[in-house]
């Protein structure tokens, strides 16, 4: 677990109101009820605030799973 993973899990648990061990990489926006549009907005802005980055509108739309979020975040931080 990296520091980034930990921070991300902390945000996800609070946004989705679930326990850390319930967070799986393949958790899907479509099949997971708490991940509604408001939660998505919340999630994206918390990640932006926490890591000091910003997402393009298309990127926001394209985050469908926890794995998607991790990938794009790592990519952003690397550049």
């Amino acid at each position: 677990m990296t520091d980034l993973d930990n921070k991300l899990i902390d945000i996800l648990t609070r946004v989705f109101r679930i326990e850390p061990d319930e967070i799986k990489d393949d958790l899907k926006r479509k099949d997971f009820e708490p991940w509604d549009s408001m939660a998505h907005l919340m999630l994206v802005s918390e990640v932006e605030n926490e890591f000091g980055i910003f997402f393009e509108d298309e990127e926001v739309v394209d985050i469908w799973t926890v794995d998607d979020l991790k990938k794009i975040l790592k990519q952003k931080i690397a550049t």
Partner: protein
Amino acid sequence: MKEILESVKKDPSYLNLWSAYKKIQALNLPAPEDERNTVRLAVIGSTTLEPLAACFDVKTRLEGFHVETFVGGFNTYRQEVLDKSSDLYKIKPDVVVLSVDAWSILDKMFLANFVRMSVKERKAVQKELAENVLSVTSNLESNTSALILVNNFVVPVFTPFGIVDNKQEVGLKRFFEGTNEILAEKLEKSSRVFLVDLDNIASSFGKSRITNWNTWYRGSIPFSDDFTPILADEYIRYVIAMKGRAKKCIVLDLDNTLWGGIIGEDGIEGIKLGNTAPGIEYVEFQRSLLSLYNRGIILAICSKNNPDDALRVFREHPSQVLKEEHFAAMRINWQNKAANIAELAKEINIGLDSMVFLDDNPIERAQISQVHPEVLVVDMPKNPRLYREMIESLNVFDVLTLTSEDMARGEMYVGKRKRTELEQSATSIEDFLRTLELKVRINEVTDFDTPRVVQLIGKTNQFNLTTRRYTDAEVNTFRKSSDAAVYSMAVHDKFGDEGVVAVAIVKKKDGDWWIDSFLMSCRVIGRSVETAFLAKIVADARKANATRIIGEYIPTKKNPPASDLYKRHGFGMPSTSDDNVTSWILNLDEQTVDVPEWIELTEE
């Protein structure tokens, strides 16, 4: 539930508040039986307001209330307000927040074209903008009985005129300031609509940080993560005031709180207190306290000191702002402070939950918190230069209406202290009452006294025979009716003017006068003025050829002090109905009630 609130209390960040809100919504809790603990909130407006509503909801819960919240749709507030069958009205809100963004009403090209608009055009748009909000507000006012909180507009920081904005007759800033001024003027007289000074709160927080542009453009969320909870705090002030949970009394330590240093060691010349540094910070802190006293906040002292040393500062120090006359009660001794505070509450006759404790010593603070968790123990800054800022940002003394009685409350409690001293030296109670030189003014309620009367009806618990709470509108209906009368009584004695302290509502039916309500502020209990009040009603009933006076009594947990009122005054034949209402009868042919000879009835 408790668990959720505990965790958010520890870290009331935006995300935690929102997360708690969502968790609580999912619990689907039943409403508590006691209505007084429930607050129904509605947050409507032109933007995405769920985050603001979530913060307001959870913060209201942290104050101990059960909450139901309605969040309006995106920019659908007009429909919600106009449609009487909308969900907004279904929850029967106690508080409605109306948060309208000026830019949602203004023309899309408003900013771009502002510079080229004529002054006349600008003023016309300004009026239209204010009207827009005011018409929604007035609909809300007539369709609900709620407290209505209307955000004013944030005066923008940017103006195309730049530094010469205020060289224009109506520059962009003055355009918004003027709109806010119109709103303030139009809403000033309403007892239920309050203009929340969003512009001021935003300034204090920092206008450049009130919006998160990412979430604004992405989801029309009007306020940033850090600002949303701050704005919710402002709304909480109104809820606390509405529910009568405001603090009324500040209990002050002396050494290193009102002045720097220790009087018992440093002496009157050695303590820090003066109009220049060092010591100016204490003088300014005292001035802020005095401003609260002048508004009606009661002050008291709780200090470990030799009374003579401490009192010398009040009497002799040239820079001491607060004098003995400003304190309703004092405990300057070596007893433990928890015991002293309990005594102070008893002497002043207010609940511990109305008290704020200010003491520089964290050990004293910890003790009070532990023994009296109801007392608000303020975490005083270590740096005395921050005392003033601390007291000025405490925001726990709010009331929804400020009557002249409220403003003079400090003096009244000082009068009470002197009265108590006299009572202790008097040989008999009658002797004591005689020396008080009591004067009462009893009349049917005037327009001027109505706000105070409504306030007394709303908050009097102890000496209240029926505890029937009536609204402003209901009281006015009684006043206008020929079959009812609303009386008020003002009391004055040699120690001061108490103002209007008692209310009675009489309903006239078939030659009988029914005393529907009879209540009196607890601060005049024990001065036999209730006898004078009853006597006046009896005399008026006699003049109107009534045959009987029937006094009603409904017992509550808090009103035993009033339970024997009718019995004491010769009312008889009590009968109790199914709904626990006891009726006492006075036959005017046989009996009467006289004004005690030591009370003088005065005219207007």
